[in-house]
């Protein structure tokens, strides 16, 4: 009964809100909490503000085994103001960490890209640490049709 109500509510809401709503209503079986914990472990108690970072990841992915993922940070990259590090986290893989990259003023452009594994439809977060000690983030919801095969017998 409850489920039907949810679905009807969803349909009503679907007019404007689209797929993002569907994702948030999904039962969260795992670990937004453990992701928060992992983030705290890496960046400490610092305040994270959304902005400056652009996480470029396709919104709909067929195969979670390789998902192209790029992070760009808006920064002049001078000796006074540069991006120190970029961290990427996920919500529902067995482990919340994805990659941590340390750059410096010599990078010229704060932009990295890699290919990641995603086990399930979930949210991915990129956090950049700037030289002035501030942290900025961007997140993206990714829908995975076929997750990275955790269970596949070899």
């Amino acid at each position, binding site marked *: 009964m409850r489920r039907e109500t949810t679905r009807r509510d969803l349909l009503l809401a679907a007019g404007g809100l689209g797929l993002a709503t569907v994702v948030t209503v999904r039962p969260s079986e795992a670990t937004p909490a453990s992701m928060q914990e992992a983030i705290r472990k890496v960046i400490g108690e610092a305040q994270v503000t959304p902005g400056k970072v652009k996480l470029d990841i396709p919104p709909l992915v067929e195969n979670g*085994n*390789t*998902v192209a993922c790029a992070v760009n940070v808006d920064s002049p990259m001078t000796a006074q103001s540069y991006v120190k590090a970029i961290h990427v986290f*996920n919500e529902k*893989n*067995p*482990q919340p*960490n*994805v*990659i*941590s*990259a*340390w*750059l*410096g003023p*010599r*990078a*010229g*452009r*704060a*932009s*990295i*890209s*890699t*290919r*990641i*594994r*995603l086990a399930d439809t979930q949210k991915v977060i990129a956090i950049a640490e700037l030289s002035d000690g501030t942290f900025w983030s961007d997140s993206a919801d990714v829908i995975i049709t076929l997750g*990275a*095969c*955790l*269970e*596949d*017998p*070899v």
Partner: protein
Amino acid sequence: MARALINVPAKAKRGDVIAIRTLISHIMETGFRHSTTGAVIPRDIITTMVVTYNDTEIFKAELHPAIAANPFVTFHTVATESGTIAFRWTGDNGFDVSEQAKITVE
């Protein structure tokens, strides 16, 4: 043993921002999969990647099991002087591969 592909421009103007792309062959076994007998397949991944430009570190990355097999990583750097850009990947089971590329800066 492990094959590494590196894309560094052979020539660059001084002060140019150059893109560096790297790909190394590695299975990146997550340690979360099971074999047909139910035994956990032990983790075997590359954990760190360090890049130096004429012996100065310009890029370091820590990889986790969530990185896809055959890790592909791109980043940028400023072409400051002619020389060598050296790459080193280390990981589980004593994995340690080094590779380098020459660059001429005009």
